[in-house]
């Protein structure tokens, strides 16, 4: 069988890195197109004792798909929709290969144009009904739309809308996966559970995987730090957010949600951070849940002001009002115009009570305006990346230090205070933004030189400890990958890390898959 493994050449250099800008090393690369080919590739690597790093869109920022030797398996050519189902509640699901790109999936679902070649009768019937019915969408929305769905499942990606609709985990109904030794597993949500912390999982060849789940208590926050484990859990959940360390995902059944008839975005500005955070808490307590509550601090707004003035590519950004030192972007979804309008006006009252002005508040109710405010949201990380790229030219050691930590609901003020104190004490430049609704702010330290970078890393580790003490998560949507393995140990401690290693051995006894993700690779007996 053609297994598509070949030597990695200078032309494949891009496959040694991801958006973390760390560069790895590998000897071989493969681009399988089918599950059967994935089985062949992994089995051969298994027999040869070759470490394997799985890749999708390489858009991750935790170096999860940066290879540490061996074979790179890029799943980007497994980019087809393989079927569709109509669910009992009238929704639909789409069966996709892991290399399907998020933006493509979005286009397929929105235009209702899917390549149905090779689909079974059930899928074609579901598709025909899907075309006749209303609008649907796939809700997880990480900023980087060129991510692949396999990678998104591997890191349990989320995005702004996960405030209302949840991360990828909540939308995976079934999956197919290949183990390092070539065995396959098929799981459907609601069908197979752990008993306490003990599990038995049959492979399709009839063999049985038996193991024990780590006994840690996961934080009650948005979280993608280490394996998802809890007593009596649905075993499908083990593979979502497993950071490419247990199996290669070869098919995902993703649930589609009915599109709300109205999607409005509101940019609310405040003269001070405290007022904005107070507003976030008020909005969060509203009876009808917002779709997203995003935050941008004064430094992020200053970056946007500069970009808008200096860079023609950003000239169409909505202007940031003078005097604004913090912004909260609220997205509202509703099916009734009168209801969403009432919600908007209520938001206005809350905004005024918090110290904002309705005259400064931008309201997007049309597709063009919504696109402009989404551009606003995306322009911040993009601008920061541009800034860092510039500084990296002066000092190659510099990369962006972006946190990804979330804390429980009652701790938002405390964590903001923690960040501000640390940044002031260390004298570091920064920009803060992110998913305030989930108490999940990305603090981006912007090092000016190597010394800043070193001190920034120290501060980051200090925060990981403090956030753990608050009952938070060290990684909430970017996953641990390789760059946050130290923080995972801070969060769970060595004993639980050992339990994670033991769990991994059930699926990958030779420790070949996703080496150095979550925890550093250790040879048996060392």
């Amino acid at each position, binding site marked *: 069988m053609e297994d598509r493994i070949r030597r990695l050449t200078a032309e494949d250099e891009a496959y040694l890195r991801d958006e973390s800008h760390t560069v790895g090393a590998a000897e071989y690369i493969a681009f399988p197109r089918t599950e059967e080919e994935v089985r062949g590739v992994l089995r051969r690597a298994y027999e040869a004792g070759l470490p394997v790093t799985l890749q999708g869109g390489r858009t991750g920022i935790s170096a999860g798909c940066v290879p540490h030797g061996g074979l790179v398996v890029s799943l980007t050519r497994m980019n087809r929709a393989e079927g569709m189902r109509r669910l009992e509640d009238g929704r639909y699901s789409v069966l996709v290969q892991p290399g399907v790109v998020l933006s493509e999936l979005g286009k397929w679902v929105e235009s209702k144009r899917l390549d149905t070649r090779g689909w079974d009768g059930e899928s074609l019937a579901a598709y025909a009904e899907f075309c006749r019915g209303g609008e649907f969408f796939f809700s997880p929305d990480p900023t980087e739309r060129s991510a692949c769905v396999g990678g998104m499942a591997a890191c349990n990606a989320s995005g702004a809308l996960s405030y209302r609709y949840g991360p990828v985990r909540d939308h995976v109904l079934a999956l197919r996966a290949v183990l390092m030794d070539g065995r396959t597993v098929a799981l459907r949500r609601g069908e197979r559970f752990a008993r306490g912390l003990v599990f038995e999982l049959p492979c399709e060849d009839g063999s049985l995987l038996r193991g024990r789940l780590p006994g840690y208590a996961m934080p009650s926050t948005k979280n993608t730090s280490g394996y998802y484990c809890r007593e009596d859990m649905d075993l499908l959940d083990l593979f979502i957010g497993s950071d490419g360390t247990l199996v290669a995902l070869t098919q995902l059944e993703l649930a589609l949600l009915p599109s709300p008839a109205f999607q409005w975005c509101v940019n609310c500005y405040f003269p001070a951070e405290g007022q904005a955070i107070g507003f976030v808490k008020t909005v969060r307590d509203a009876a009808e849940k917002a779709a997203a509550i995003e935050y941008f601090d004064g430094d992020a707004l200053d970056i946007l002001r500069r970009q808008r003035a200096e860079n023609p590519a950003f000239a169409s950004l*909505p202007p940031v009002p003078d005097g604004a030192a913090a912004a909260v972007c609220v997205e509202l979804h509703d099916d009734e115009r009168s209801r969403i309008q009432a919600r908007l006006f209520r938001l206005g009252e809350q905004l005024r009570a918090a110290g904002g002005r309705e*005259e*400064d508040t*931008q*309201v997007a109710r*049309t597709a063009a305006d919504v696109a402009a405010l989404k551009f606003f949201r995306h322009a911040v990380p993009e601008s920061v990346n541009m800034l860092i790229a510039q500084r990296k030219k002066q000092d190659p050691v510099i990369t962006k230090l972006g946190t990804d930590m979330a804390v429980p609901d009652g701790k938002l003020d405390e964590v903001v205070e923690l960040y501000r104190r640390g940044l002031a004490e260390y004298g570091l430049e920064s920009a803060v933004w992110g998913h305030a609704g989930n108490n999940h702010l990305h603090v981006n330290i912007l090092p000016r030189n190597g010394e800043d970078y070193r001190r920034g890393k120290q501060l980051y580790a200090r925060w990981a400890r403090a956030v753990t003490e608050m009952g938070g998560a060290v990684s909430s949507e970017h996953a641990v990958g390789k760059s946050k393995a130290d923080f995972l140990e801070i969060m769970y401690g060595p004993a639980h890390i050992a339990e994670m290693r033991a769990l991994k051995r059930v699926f990958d006894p030779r420790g070949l898959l996703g080496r150095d993700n979550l925890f550093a690779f250790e040879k048996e007996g060392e």
Partner: protein
Amino acid sequence: MRIAVCLKQVPSTNEVRLDPETHTILRDGRQSVVNPFDAHALEEAVRLKESLGGHVTAISMGIPAAETLLRDAVARGADEGVLLTDRAFAGADTLATSYTLAAGLRKAGPFDLILCGKMAVDGDTAQIGPELAQQLGLPHLTEVCEITPVGEGRARVRRLTQRGGQEVEVTLPAVLTLVREINTPRMPTLAGVRRGEAASIVRWGLAELGVDESRCGLKGSPTQVVRTFVPVRARETAFLSGDARSQAEQLLKIAGEVLA
């Protein structure tokens, strides 16, 4: 300065549904947006008002649901909205539309400046502006990218045409159609949205306008749509095999079919 802005509601996508009987676009108001060029006209009107003082009237001919569009225009800075709506106006081509719009503008006016988008993205005719000017007996300039009122009832206007730029002075009142380059439309503020929702939108039908019914709507339209359809675009990839000669022959044959 009293300014009128003509706004058209257009389908938000290319996937329009057509009426099988009249072959015109079904406007159910759900998936509709303001014609993007008209958004620039509204923005320019509001900017002129902000710098010179004055009053902006947004006017549209359309189905009752187009009222949402006019409330949105008020939210973005217009002072009032006028909706010309009547079953008799349905199915209008550009001649019947400009006849009706002109009547509305006469009733709502007088205006110093009437602004339109360069064209509507659904019909692509770019006829309404010039036809309006004709109906109202006013001068007009198309593809305008800059407007500078210079006093004494005149304005200096820059045009951005496919061949280059042109600077023209025009007497007011005049009808101008604007290109996208003229400005970046603003987003409504929450305070604006409240104003828009609280505004009372004027509605005028056949009776209020006192127009000749035979010149309105489908009846008043010399343009009759015989057939409309959504073009089907098929894309196919073919791989040629064989030696160079046979591949060249196959290619020639395909080229011949395409060019035939």
